[in-house]
């Protein structure tokens, strides 16, 4: 019979998230799986409710993209009691590993580190004052990407983060905060921008242009996610690098699940997706054209 799988998604707070949803639905369709989709509107309690409802309905497996790492033990235990395998997408949780089948995620700290290392290699020995646009205060990508970046530039005293403020992962805030950076520091004194996601970087690019500076040249820009608009910006020379966070977490997850349900093959506990660095050396226009219909 067909598989019924419940998918508890965080919400649709960013283009990347929307793309993940689209890809997941496509992957499920490709495999003939009946996907029950539940949007949690960015709330953990809604995700827990959704998982409980999935259990009550008796689905065959559950995919969940946890909004936060903590707080899942109880509900995962209930799923385990009901013999429903759970696969985590895109983030892991602080729970006993036996409670879920596997986690398909990237390494957020690693992404930050890649960004940091890129900047180190780009700058060489030059002095560089960096401004940072953080994600939503308290969210795990914001925390980990900050941490990773700091690790990446550690030991290079010529690189220095001079201002760091939250841009809430949005374009609008990215632009507003960048404007204040440009004024508070003086545009000439900023050599690079590190943004926790591409949306903020895209907003910041506009602020830089309005201040009469050239993004990508006067101020180097590196961000994370590799959404289509970032590729476009790189193609146009307004941005320098982005690290890909693939929206296709569901593909590997469903592969593992199908294998498990069919033959009981236990997958590895962590399936890490690649964090690929894209710079102006890649054919960004082509990638843009390919990605732009994914629902970003």
């Amino acid at each position, binding site marked *: 019979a067909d598989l019924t799988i419940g998918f508890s998604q965080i919400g649709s707070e960013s283009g990347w998230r929307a793309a993940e949803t689209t890809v997941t639905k496509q992957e499920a369709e490709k495999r003939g799986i009946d996907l029950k989709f539940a949007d949690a509107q960015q709330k953990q309690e809604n995700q827990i409710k959704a998982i409980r409802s999935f259990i009550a309905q008796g689905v065959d497996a559950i995919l969940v993209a946890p909004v936060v790492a903590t707080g899942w033990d109880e509900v995962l235990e209930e799923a385990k009691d009901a013999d429903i395998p759970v696969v985590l997408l895109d983030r892991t949780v602080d729970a006993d590993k036996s409670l879920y089948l596997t986690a398909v995620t990237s390494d957020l700290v690693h992404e930050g580190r890649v960004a940091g290392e890129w900047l180190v290699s780009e700058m060489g020995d030059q002095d560089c004052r960096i401004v940072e646009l953080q994600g939503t205060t308290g969210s795990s990508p914001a925390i980990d990407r900050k941490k990773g970046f700091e690790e990446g530039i550690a030991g290079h005293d010529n690189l220095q983060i001079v201002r760091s403020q939250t841009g809430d992962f949005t374009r*609008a805030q990215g632009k507003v905060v960048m404007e204040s950076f440009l004024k508070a520091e003086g545009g000439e004194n900023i050599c690079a921008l590190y943004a926790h996601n591409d949306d903020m970087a895209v907003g910041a690019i506009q602020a830089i242009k309005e201040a009469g500076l050239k993004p990508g040249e006067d101020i180097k820009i590196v961000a994370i996610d590799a959404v289509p*608009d970032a590729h476009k910006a790189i193609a146009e020379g307004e941005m320098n690098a982005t690290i890909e966070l693939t929206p296709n977490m569901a593909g590997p997850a469903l592969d593992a699940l199908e294998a498990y349900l069919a033959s009981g093959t236990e997958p590895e506990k962590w399936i890490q997706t690649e964090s690929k660095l894209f710079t102006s050396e890649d054919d960004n226009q082509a990638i843009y054209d390919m990605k732009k219909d994914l629902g970003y």
Partner: protein
Amino acid sequence: MGPKPSTLKRVMPQLLILAAALALNVLVFPEFFHIDFRNGRLFGNVVDVLNRGAPVALLCIGMTLVIATRGIDLSVGAVMAIAGAVAASVVVDGHGWVTALLAALAAGGVCGLWNGFLVAVLRIQPIVATLVLMVAGRGIAQLVTEGKILTFSDPGLIHLGAGVVAGIPTPILIWVTLGLLVAWAVRKTALGMLIEAIGINERSSRLAGINSRVLLICVYTVSGLCAALAGVIVAADIKGADANNAGLWLELDAILAVVIGGNSLLGGRFSILASLIGALIIQSVNSVILLSGMPPEFNLVIKAVLILCILVIQSPRIGNLIYILRASGPQPQPDRPPLPKKEAAR
């Protein structure tokens, strides 16, 4: 025409607080008032405060009127998202920016009409009535954009959010013009008084022949239109409609601005001018936070403390103690020196 002395007196406390907030900005960033002319536009922190204050300022024009009728409009943030999405999808479909603007305004107007219908005809309490659209509206906006950030490159539309006219960012011109226009219109006609009357005692007002139903619907529609304009500006500013984040929680800022403007949430007497200054006060507070360079975890605490200070200063009780505020405080209490005999006062 300059403002009448009575108007000046009404907004004096707000002006003083604004001055204090700006002074605080100078304290954390001495070059706050420095303005350049760069890249064809005025460039400086003060310009930013005016420019970034635009969405809240626009929202609070409509919100002031709604609150004057003893209502509240929680849906404005969602309406912004809808309007932005509509404008973006219209230009992406290849129409001109005027069409896009009109379509967005129409969408906002329809949202306002819907709120007004629920409040005035179905008699649903405003906070719940607008909660419906607050919840559903963002979904509608995402339906329009299909969940993505719908980017566009129509120069006309972008001009509304990021352009300049004679060096001044367009949003500033838009909100200042609209604010003055609406403030002038409600005071030049009898609208202002009629709105206040239904806010204070709707029953009496109806018995006195005021068409409260139509007036309520109008007021919510105006609020919807203002929100739509704000939504277009926000979308144009980032050249894309971000249905999920555009205007998120801005309704609270708009309400706050109205209250900082000294308007009562219980309806009645209102001043749009004071609300606009309130919006600027909020933006100045935001500016302090950004310029101070404190880590973002402290943002909310700083904002809360500053807002509390502002509100405490404005509280009617405190107002009685401070002479300058008492001159226009909402409800002065007695203890003035005895006046000449009552007959003389008559």
